[in-house]
């Protein structure tokens, strides 16, 4: 795998084509630190939001005397609630990801890493806080944060195809990117665990075209990438339809798990351009267009 800095640069280049991503968050994670952008509602922050008449019960110290002096009424100066959402990203590092077929030009792990970092770049540019779903990860923000994330991504352990159990801040957002070929039960357990935190999120299944289509023929012995799993198929053409059905069932199961947990779900093939996947992620994570238009910063 390539070094951290070039990976970060490639992700930046990919993310350059999209505006900064401001994660839609109904409820901001509790541990969120103060962010740089307003949430378009009154709260703690530096930016002026509105004046409102002094009501009984308000502390006298909150009266904006300069404004109050212009009229007969006393006004209280309210500021916009400025807070950053925390987004936790996970890229599957299992050995099965480090493979590509003859039809593909890139391995699944490269594509997943690229998507992860591009998403992180978008988020960081939007002022969000990004961390990796790993026990050792530290939250990153700002431009320097992307470099650090890339370096952390390099150092991540291989894993077993499922997100690790890490304590997450509540109401954070989680994006899981991997081939998601593990048994559905295991995936459901992992997603359920996340949803119980509670966090919202999105799952992206990255597949090699060969995995999607099974373009082999004849007598073939299939072997797993690292583990000793193997099977001898006497005639691959004969099982192609059965395999497609199985894959569709897996994907349908994933979609069902996500729907139950309130997660989003999308599928990406490595022979498709990464921009498409990134755009799908963007639209899934960004706030609704109406909400955004009402902001108007």
């Amino acid at each position, binding site marked *: 795998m390539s070094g951290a800095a070039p990976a970060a640069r490639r992700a930046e280049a990919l993310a350059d084509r999209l505006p900064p991503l401001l994660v839609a968050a109904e409820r901001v994670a509790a541990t969120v630190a103060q962010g740089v952008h307003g949430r378009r509602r009154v709260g703690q922050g530096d930016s002026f939001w509105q004046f409102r008449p002094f009501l009984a019960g308000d502390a006298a110290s909150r009266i904006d005397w300069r404004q109050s002096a212009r009229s007969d009424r006393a006004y209280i100066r309210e500021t916009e609630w400025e807070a950053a959402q925390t987004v936790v990203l996970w890229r599957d590092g299992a050995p099965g990801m480090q493979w590509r077929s003859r039809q593909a030009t890139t391995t699944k792990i490269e594509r997943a890493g690229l998507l992860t970092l591009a998403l992180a770049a978008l988020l960081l540019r939007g002022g969000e806080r990004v961390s990796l779903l790993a026990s050792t990860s530290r939250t990153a923000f700002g431009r320097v944060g992307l470099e650090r994330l890339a370096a952390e991504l390099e150092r991540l352990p291989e894993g077993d195809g499922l997100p690790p159990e890490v304590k997450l801040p509540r109401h954070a957002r989680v994006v899981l990117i991997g*081939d998601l070929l593990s048994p559905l039960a295991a995936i459901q357990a992992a997603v359920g665990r996340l949803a119980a935190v509670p966090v919202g999120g999105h799952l992206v299944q990255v597949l090699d075209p060969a995995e999607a289509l099974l373009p*082999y023929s004849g007598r073939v012995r299939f072997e*797993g990438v690292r583990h000793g*799993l193997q*099977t001898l198929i006497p005639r691959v053409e004969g099982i192609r339809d059965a395999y497609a059905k199985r894959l569709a069932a897996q994907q349908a199961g994933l979609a069902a798990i996500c729907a139950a947990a309130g997660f989003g779900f999308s599928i990406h093939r490595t022979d498709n351009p990464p921009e498409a996947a990134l755009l799908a992620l963007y639209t899934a994570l960004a706030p609704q267009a109406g909400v955004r238009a009402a902001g108007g910063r």
Partner: protein
Amino acid sequence: MIFAAPWVLLALPVLPLLWWLLRVTPPSPRREIFPAVRMLMGLTATAETPARTPWWLLLLRMIAAGLVIVGLARPVLDAGGSLPGSGPLLLVVDDGWAAAVDWSRRMTAAEAALARAEREGRRVGLLATAPDETAAAPAATPAMPVSEARTRLAALRPKPWPVDRVAAAAAAREWAGRGGVLYLADGTTGGSGWDDFATALAAVGPVEVVRDAVAPARLLLAPRAEADRLVARVAQVPRGLPAEATVLAQTGDGRTLARALASFAPNAAEAEAPIVLPPELRNRLGRLVLEGQSSAGAVVLLDERWRRRPVGLLAGEPTTASTPLTGELYYLQRALAPTAEIRQGTLAQLLARELSVLILTDYVADGPDADALAKWVEHGGLLVRFAGPRLAEHPDTLLPVKLMAGDRQLGGAMSWSQPAGLAAFAANSPFAGLTVPDEVKVTQQVLAEPGAHLTDATWARLADGTPLVTQAPRGAGRIVLFHVTANADWSDLPLSGLFVTILRRLVDLSVGVATDEAADSPPLAPAETLDGFGQLASPPPAAAAIPVRELADAVVSPRHPPGLYGPENGRRALNLSNRMPLPVAAPAIPGAREAPIGGVAPERALAPWLIALALALLVIDLLVSLRLRGLLRAATIALALFVIAPAVWAQEPQEPNPALATRLAYIVTGDAQADEVSRSGLAGLSEYVNQRTAANLAAPAAVVPGQDDLSFYPLLYWPITGDAGTPPGAAVAALNAYMDNGGIILIDTGDGGSGEGFNPGADAALERVTHGLTVPPLAPLTSAHVLAHAFYLLQDFPGRFTGDTVWVQRDQDRSNDSVSPVIIGSHDWAAAWAVEASGRPAYAVIPGGDRQRTLAYRFGVNLVMYALTGNYKGDQVHVPALLERLGQ
């Protein structure tokens, strides 16, 4: 076909087992890494794939395995039958001169026999039937392993002398009863002792004779000298069918002067081939060679005997004989001096040394002189006598015809008759073909008595039929009488050029003599001797000097191999045919099995080919297996084939486009020899032109007018053979169109200077072939013509011959760039230009010299330049005049 290791074939029954093993093992599957393998677990196919190796692949492997087994059994093709007898084998090889002609075939047959003996595990003895170079008599080797015999056999070479049957029989007797005999025979008895030899061979054991039904070797005998020709004689073992042999007359350095054909009648042992050579060439003859036969018997070396002809002159009146213009010997001396060695003296002095011709002018021989002369003539001398007043009064006995007393006078104050001219020479006269000049008149002569034989005895006669030159053979010699004097007193004959020619022909009639050496001169040491293949080489160790007197009767042997003997200035030749009986076919050996030499095909081991084929099949199998496993894509194979295929297809058809290069062309005459001379001549000229000029000529082309398009060729060379017929109308039309459009035809009758000797009938043929051609008016080619300075400045235009006139167009035709469309000559240019493959000139030029050949090439260069550039050089001539005019 046999197997050298047949026990390996026992492995063949294992093949079915191999088949079964290969069949039950399915082809190993392709291996694919696949992360989603978990999803594939437990999936079952809708149809089962054949898990067995395809039958054709199996067959391929079985064939490969079978080939390996058969190959390891070492099969040998054409191994021949078994060898005669058992126990050690005696290989008897004839290595005399007669075996040299097909020596390589003999060696192949002998090696095949050795290979058979090796397989049968027999030891071999070798017996060569000719004495070796150290003059050791033939001896059989002891039985030895085949490998040793093989090296001995490889060292064997044919000898330039005959086999020694007597000694060989003695050698074979040592082997009596010990085993079998394989006899590689040359098919001739090879002198005496054949029966003894055959018996000795049969005594050894069963005999197999390997020989051709007819002995191929021919023997060139000593030629016979006739008036204007040399008659080569070829001997062979008589055979039932007519045959032909070509005799080449060559110079000492191997260049061919002439060739002649000897035709054997059925069952004839001897044939003759007359070789007609101009006198100038005859003196350059070095040897006669049988074409296509490389053996010592196919070469006759010619020494000084065939060239030197000393002429003795003796006058009846010695005191005034040499007086200029009136002396009797004056004209004779001047006529003969350029070509013959002239001696004068008394009769005793003259006869003391060897003489070819003795000319007596008005000399009356009587008493002991007449006896000595008669003896000399009977031993082969040619006596030429001129009449005169003395002889007219006292005719002696040494005359070809009886003379009437007194002489006859024609013309003059007291006579009615006029001086008589000469009649044309009869065909049986050696002077036939010479033109008779009108100015020769005879005023006085001696008369022969009429008789029945007088016509046959007459070589020349007057216009009224009176004999002028008569002759009669006597013993081995001949007497010729001129009925006039040798000076201008009685006739104009000595004043004419005819006199010179007649005398030269007479001298050529005589028998040559060797260098005259005294009986006590030192023996002649061998200088160069022929080897078995007829090539001159340094003498073998046993060659010894030979006394002069014994040379004529010497029989060729290891001590006296055929070749040249004596000092450099007086080489004498000893030829194989000297005192050798004609070859006689050897009768069959009783009880012997016979096999033809050519029928013994060389053994061919098949094992390497079979193993190679098996390896190739296995490579194919490997590729197919890789393909089945998906490790090799069809595209890769296709690519490999694509890379290899162009190398196979890259060979273009060899049909040269004549328009792509400038090249000379010659007209095919149909005479293969003339065409080959034309081809090699033009090739030699093209080479010369390419070396020395900017022109770049490709290899010459052979064209047939009317069939080939002539417009590609700047110059056509057209040799006229004597038997050329009228060309068909289409050819004439094509040639006329070619000339009209600027082409040049060089017509060469090839008979210049040789008096038609080389190309009889060429003039008549020229008339025939040019009948329909629009040949413009011609004029002699002079040094003022553009052709004489188109590249080199030339004064004459020699080819193989020189001195004849070359004809070109007389008038300048501006429409055709003033280029003469036809050039006619008789100098046989192609022969002068021709080069052999070795780069040497193929034909001697006449009269000769490097200068003549260089000039011939220069004429060729001028010709090519003339054809390529037209009258360009003609314009150049005017450059000084133009410059001068510009200056004014």
